[in-house]
């Protein structure tokens, strides 16, 4: 895992027992994870009694470094040993490493999900509903007498959902289902490699 100089410096400060004792270290690590996970920006995340006596600039640097380190670890999918060796290189003591790792393990899944939710992709189909209708007549033509389907695909993109509505005849629906089945078959084949 590569870390930039400023992050390394911030983490070294965090490792320094004269700057962060055990309780303030724990408070800062907790605050870092919390500030990443919370859905609201909280400017007062560092206002804690344990962190009061630490120089605020140093505190902010360490907080930045810790959050960056956490995110980088998730981004690179670093395992426990990689993170431990990385922290040990920055002269973290064993119990500090242990505390960090255990906290990280606790939040890992959620952070992974958070990172995975960033990006863009086409709308996702979530559900489909259908209605079978019988076309009897309309303003222009009488005695049409054809069954047809009204399909509605429920899609979701960036948290907002949209319905795609379209009609299709029985043959067209058969075509559609056939194609989807083809797709499902090839997906299944891909899963058996």
């Amino acid at each position: 895992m590569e870390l930039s100089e400023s992050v390394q410096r911030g983490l070294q400060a965090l490792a320094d027992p004269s700057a962060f004792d055990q309780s303030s270290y724990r408070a800062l690590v907790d605050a870092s994870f919390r500030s990443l996970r919370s859905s609201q920006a909280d400017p007062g995340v560092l206002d804690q009694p344990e962190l009061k006596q630490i120089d605020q600039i140093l505190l902010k640097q360490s907080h930045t470094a810790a959050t960056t380190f956490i995110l980088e670890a998730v981004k690179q999918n670093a395992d426990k040993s990689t993170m431990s060796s990385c922290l040990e290189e920055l002269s973290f003591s064993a119990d500090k490493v242990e505390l960090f790792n255990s906290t990280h393990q606790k939040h890992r899944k959620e952070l992974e999900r958070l990172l995975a939710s960033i990006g863009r992709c086409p709308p996702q189909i979530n559900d489909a509903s259908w209605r079978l209708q019988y076309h009897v007549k309309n303003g222009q033509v009488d005695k049409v007498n054809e069954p047809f389907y009204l399909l509605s695909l429920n899609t979701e993109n960036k948290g907002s959902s949209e319905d795609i509505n379209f009609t299709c005849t029985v043959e067209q629906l058969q075509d559609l289902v056939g194609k989807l089945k083809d797709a499902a078959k090839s997906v299944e084949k891909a899963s058996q490699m």
Partner: protein
Amino acid sequence: MLLVLSDDHKEHLSFLPKVDAAVVGEFGRIALEFLRRGSSPKIYEGAARKLCVPVEMVQHGVEGLMYLMTESSKHMISEVDFLDSVLVLGFGEELNQILLQLYLQHHSQIRSILSQLPSNLPAYHNLEWRLDVQLASRPVRQQVIPMLTMRLLLTGGCGSRDDLSRRVLQTDPSTLLHLITTLEAALAAIKTNHARRIFRNIK
């Protein structure tokens, strides 16, 4: 079922017996052409000059024919009903036969033209798909997310007639399976006794 022709309509069509049967046939051809492609006043002028009659008269004649054809095609009236309806106009036997032939030959085509008129929802045209696996993204460098990417091609819809609209969509394998079961249920619904009974009774 008989067609009820309005007085205006009758008056417009009264021009027809005054001209040759061949001319009526020609009018019928023009009327069908106009139904297919849209009308053009130039042809009226040309015909009016040839026949030495006012342009309005020709126009009324052709348009009357168009209306007659569309109305009878719309209701899909039978041969006998058509003849009975035309009888009101008091045309000769020959002219009635010409009109009947015109109707019988072209009613299915006119129906298909008419069926495009109502405001439709977009209709399914095609579906293209491929299996994608997302392996990394900017914030995450190691992922394996299988995704089925589809392009749904739809025709028509409000305003945009004749051209296809494309929707690119994605779904995950489990939802894909769900979609298939849902749509298969839809296909099965049409074969149920209930649906069959309804279809049979409406016809």
